[in-house]
């Protein structure tokens, strides 16, 4: 199941925002010298000031409100604005050309390749339309040199579009590939640990148990031997739990929300608990997703198995920089002294620690239920 295709959405708009700023600044910087070279009239003076103002304001706004960087409406408005400057200048050979081209950077790097090219083609046609509106002197264009420069002017936006779309597409694929190999490495490591646990440590414990049990058999038995045997049996049981955990594959492809929903369904099928899963976190680094999944799963299992809850809720909140995972139930709370056996609290804490995250576990007995809240940063792992 793949509810989210990473290529279809901007993985990280800010990666290309720098390029946008540079081209927009360059576009603004060439305006004054070009206008001055062409003997400034007063309307052109006003137009130049307007262009510089627009370049600065648009850059500032997009830097402040980052969601606008990936909004189709904003891209269209931006294109229309810069083409408006061209029309207002009144000639297709315009000093605002580079400024106009800069409007292509964000859409072509954010959209999937085909739609990016479609956007670029639309822009080119709009530029042609703007040129027609202001009036192309076709007699003049029909001379070879003029024709070449007119053609080039229309070709440049397409070239820019194709290059940027291709580069962005490649980067996204690289990113996906990196996440996949990260997941594979994680999987391989788990297999190795499982193998070591089973093949070596567990066999040694069995041997120790056997040897000790022979001592107790030979009537040398003391309370300590009995206790040691008990400990060894508990140790193999612990290892079996870890092995089961390790052998279960990391959820592949599915998002964290989807994986938790599936687990909730399994729990609901086996009990009378009602579990709601709200929200999702589609693009998480594999390690974060795996740890958060285990924490959520453990908390839900506790709610059902130990706290006798009748309702539970999972809330996922994903901002791109932080992941918040909240599990709430109406059960009896956790048993006393519950750093306790069987509830997996210490393993939840270790997982949170591994993520550099904060984990709050609040248990109010007498039907007040339990709240488990994970607040994990994504900054170091989600960016490249």
């Amino acid at each position, binding site marked *: 199941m793949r509810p989210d295709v990473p290529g279809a959405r901007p993985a990280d708009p800010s990666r290309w925002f720098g390029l946008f700023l540079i081209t927009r600044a360059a576009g603004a910087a060439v305006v004054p010298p070009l206008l001055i070279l062409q003997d400034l009239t007063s309307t052109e003076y006003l137009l130049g000031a307007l262009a510089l103002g627009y370049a600065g304001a648009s850059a500032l706004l997009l830097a402040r409100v980052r969601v606008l960087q990936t909004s189709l409406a904003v891209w269209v408005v931006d294109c229309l604005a810069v083409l408006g400057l061209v029309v207002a200048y009144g000639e297709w050979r315009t000093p605002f050309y580079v400024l106009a081209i800069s409007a292509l950077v964000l859409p072509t790097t954010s959209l999937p390749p085909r739609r990016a090219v479609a956007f670029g083609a639309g822009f080119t046609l709009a530029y042609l339309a703007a040129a027609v509106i202001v009036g192309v002197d076709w007699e003049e264009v029909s001379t070879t040199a003029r024709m070449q420069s007119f053609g080039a002017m229309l070709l440049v936006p397409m070239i820019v579009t194709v290059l940027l779309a291709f580069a962005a597409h490649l980067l996204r694929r690289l990113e996906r590939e990196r996440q996949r190999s990260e997941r594979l490495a994680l999987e391989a490591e788990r297999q190795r640990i499982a193998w070591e*646990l089973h093949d070596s440590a567990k066999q*040694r414990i*069995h*041997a120790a*148990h*056997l040897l000790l*049990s022979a001592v107790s058999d030979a009537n040398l038995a003391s309370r300590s031997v009995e206790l040691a045997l008990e400990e060894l049996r508990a140790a193999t049981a612990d290892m079996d739990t870890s092995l089961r955990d*390790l052998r279960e594959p990391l959820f592949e492809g599915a998002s964290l929300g989807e994986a938790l929903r599936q687990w909730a369904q399994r729990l609901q099928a086996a009990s009378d608990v009602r579990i709601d899963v709200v929200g999702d976190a589609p693009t998480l680094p594999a390690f974060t997703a795996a740890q958060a999944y285990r924490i959520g799963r453990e908390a839900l299992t506790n709610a059902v198995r130990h706290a006798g809850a009748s309702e539970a809720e999972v809330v996922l909140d994903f901002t791109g920089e932080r992941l918040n995972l909240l599990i709430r139930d109406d059960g009896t709370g956790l048993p006393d002294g519950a750093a306790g056996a069987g509830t997996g609290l210490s393993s939840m804490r270790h997982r949170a620690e591994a993520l550099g995250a904060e984990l709050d576990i609040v248990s109010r007995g007498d039907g007040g239920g339990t709240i488990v809240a994970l607040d994990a940063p994504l900054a170091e792992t989600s960016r490249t």
Partner: protein
Amino acid sequence: MIRVLIIDDHHAMRRGLENVLSETPDLVPVATGSAEGDLWHLLKRTAPDVVLLDYHLPGQDGLMLCHRIKSLTLAPRVIIYSAYADESLEIAATVAGADGVLNKNAPANELFAALRGGPGDEPAIPAPRAEALSAAARKLDDGERPLLGMLMQRTPLPDVADALGLPLDEAASRVRGVIGRLRVRVPAGAE
């Protein structure tokens, strides 16, 4: 005196078993080996009464080896020894002709009892529950299910071959196919 051949791929288990058995008057660990490579010549050299056979071995697993040991004339008794002994392993072990299945977490007295065997050397694997048996049957195809029935009754191989109207070696290879399918899933990397 019961002579025991120990086959286990982990030295801690081999050493532990050897030690525990050597302190028990009626049980003698005659040799230890770690895999199939040791098995056949140790069998020939020591002629044990019973083989304590680890299930998870490198190369051929304990069930397959058990089937081959039990095909020998004058075969010793075979106890399958596993960290994951459960009902599905017991069924597979019965099919492979094992005389007993023992979990590795069993205390020494249970090990001794398994090695000594019951009166008359009757195999001591409890009859499986009906659900476990049908779960095992689901792993097989239609042609193999009658074979499972016969093998659970411990029908000798020549009789199985007769009933199927097959030559002996053909029947044996069918049995190996059934054992292969009943093989218990083990933790990653342990197979």
